[in-house]
């Protein structure tokens, strides 16, 4: 005895269901590019009055005078680059060193556990980093880090001036902790994607384990590791809250890391609501637009670099 089979739906009915399913999904998927289009046109259009008025000089002059209606973004652009560079200076050796240890020397268990802990840094909200920066990091710097730095390097232009607490140094250090998990997680995946035959070949030639890493593993993963660093740079450029809370928000341009500075993201966070005139607002939109364009370029190049090593696998999308 065979069970009676359920009646099959008619073909026309099925085709209708398929069409409805596909159309629904397509509409939802189209939302993504439409959002992007809206973002570019809205922010671009709002920035247009400032672009028209100041042209290229907006990017290279440093006047910021809402009363006289003259705006130049040079100090903010400089501050963004400087704080991001400081962050990379600290984060890259730590992230790469930790990733090399975890993938090449540590047992599997340690790799998962410590790797998970480092990833956890990415889960901490930016504003909490800022809070910690104000009440823990800055007092620590004032007490223990700035006096010795001044004693040893005080003669260089980078450690001149009064240290008030809020400074480029504090911003760079906070940023370095914030981007560390991104660089570490991508470079870990890149190193894991290096084929074992590379390591075995070097070991067979008599290399020590460190020589193996240095001569066989790192060169193989080089493009991906550079990609990981560039991805970290992309994060640092656009980071807002923590930086706004510790950088001091001053319009001057100074190479000393002990002095306060400003970044592009921070000036938007700080002055957007105070912007009383249309041109003032437009200048802030132009800063946002420039920031957007720069991060798009940086992120796109990072992705290309990582793809070259770990083709196909979704490296980097796992970072919390």
């Amino acid at each position: 005895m065979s069970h009676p089979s359920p009646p099959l739906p008619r073909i026309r009915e099925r085709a209708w269901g398929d069409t409805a399913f596909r159309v629904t999904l397509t509409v939802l998927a189209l939302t993504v590019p439409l959002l992007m289009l809206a973002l570019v046109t809205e922010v671009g259009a709002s920035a247009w009055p400032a672009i028209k008025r100041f042209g290229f000089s907006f990017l290279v002059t440093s006047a910021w005078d809402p009363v006289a209606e003259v705006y130049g973004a040079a100090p903010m652009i400089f501050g963004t680059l400087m704080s991001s560079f400081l962050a990379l200076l600290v984060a890259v050796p730590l992230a790469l060193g930790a990733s090399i240890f975890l993938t090449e020397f540590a047992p599997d268990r340690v790799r998962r556990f410590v790797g998970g802990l480092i990833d956890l840094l990415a889960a901490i909200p930016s504003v909490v980093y800022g809070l910690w920066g104000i009440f823990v990091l800055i007092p620590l710097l004032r007490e223990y880090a700035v006096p010795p730095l001044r004693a040893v390097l005080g003669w260089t232009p980078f450690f001149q001036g009064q240290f008030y607490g809020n400074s480029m140094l504090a911003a760079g250090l906070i940023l370095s902790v914030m981007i560390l998990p991104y660089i570490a997680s991508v470079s870990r995946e890149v190193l894991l994607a290096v084929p074992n035959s590379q390591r075995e070949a070097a070991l067979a030639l008599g290399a020590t384990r460190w020589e193996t890493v240095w001569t066989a593993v790192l060169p193989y993963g080089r493009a991906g590791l550079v990609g990981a660093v560039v991805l970290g740079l992309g994060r640092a450029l656009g980071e807002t809250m923590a930086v706004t809370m510790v950088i001091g928000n001053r319009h001057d341009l100074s190479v000393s890391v002990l002095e306060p500075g400003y970044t592009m993201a921070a000036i938007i966070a700080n002055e957007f609501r105070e912007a009383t005139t249309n041109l003032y607002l437009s200048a802030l939109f132009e800063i946002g637009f420039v920031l957007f364009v720069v991060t798009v370029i940086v992120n796109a190049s990072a992705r290309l670099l990582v793809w070259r090593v770990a083709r196909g696998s979704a490296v980097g999308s796992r970072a919390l």
Partner: protein
Amino acid sequence: MTAATVIAAILAVLPLALIFGDLILKGASSINLDFFIKNPVAAGQSGGGVANAIMGTVIIVGLASLIGLPVGIGAGIYLAEYGSGRMGWIVRFVADVLNGTPSIVVGIFVWTWMVRPLGGFSALAGAVALATLMVPMVTRTTEDIVRLVPESLREAALALGYARWRASLLVVVRTALPGIVTGALLGVARVAGETAPLLFTALGNLHFKTNIFEPMQTLSLQIYVYATGPFDEWHRLAWGSALVLIGIVLLFSLAARYVTRARYGRG
């Protein structure tokens, strides 16, 4: 040199220990019943709590999920199922670009969209900003996980006479469901702590509000205002809020891990 890499690993974990240590040390002491059920008192006075901010966080993040998750999950399923053509490439590329966009830029974008034309800040605008951040993230995680479902499952369903859409929804998507839930929970965890996109949308509010067309406070905004303010009492509340906020974020992150692990075992 091997020793240097060990030191790097230790130094990389050190900030985590320091931050959590301080959060617990300074945060736990300011958390009591009042903290959860009272609203902020006038500046400079002691006492009060952050009930308004906790409620606001729940409302804004909930609303953002309501808007962002269906779009993100739908777009992700689209990419996995029909995403091999040119449109798939565009959606994927744009999602990656949006993922890397600074959240403050998303904030001023939503301001031009929802605050400027409507003439006022609102919790709804804040939720739209958070949803905008959530969509590209959820899109990519959903796609990745739906792609992992073996094609043979779909073929088996089609061979049994299922229509394509039923096979997609009831077999492929259902198999990938724990992974999709994980991606969604991670998306929620990521935006729950966001502050920058809310500065010019939800704005913040010292009063307890549940009307989504009015400005509303969140824990993240509260931490920003209190941490940068002059009063010790505010700093105390900021640390407490930070501990609660990180608790919420970690809860969602851990839940995300648990959902995947329960289904697929370790890993």
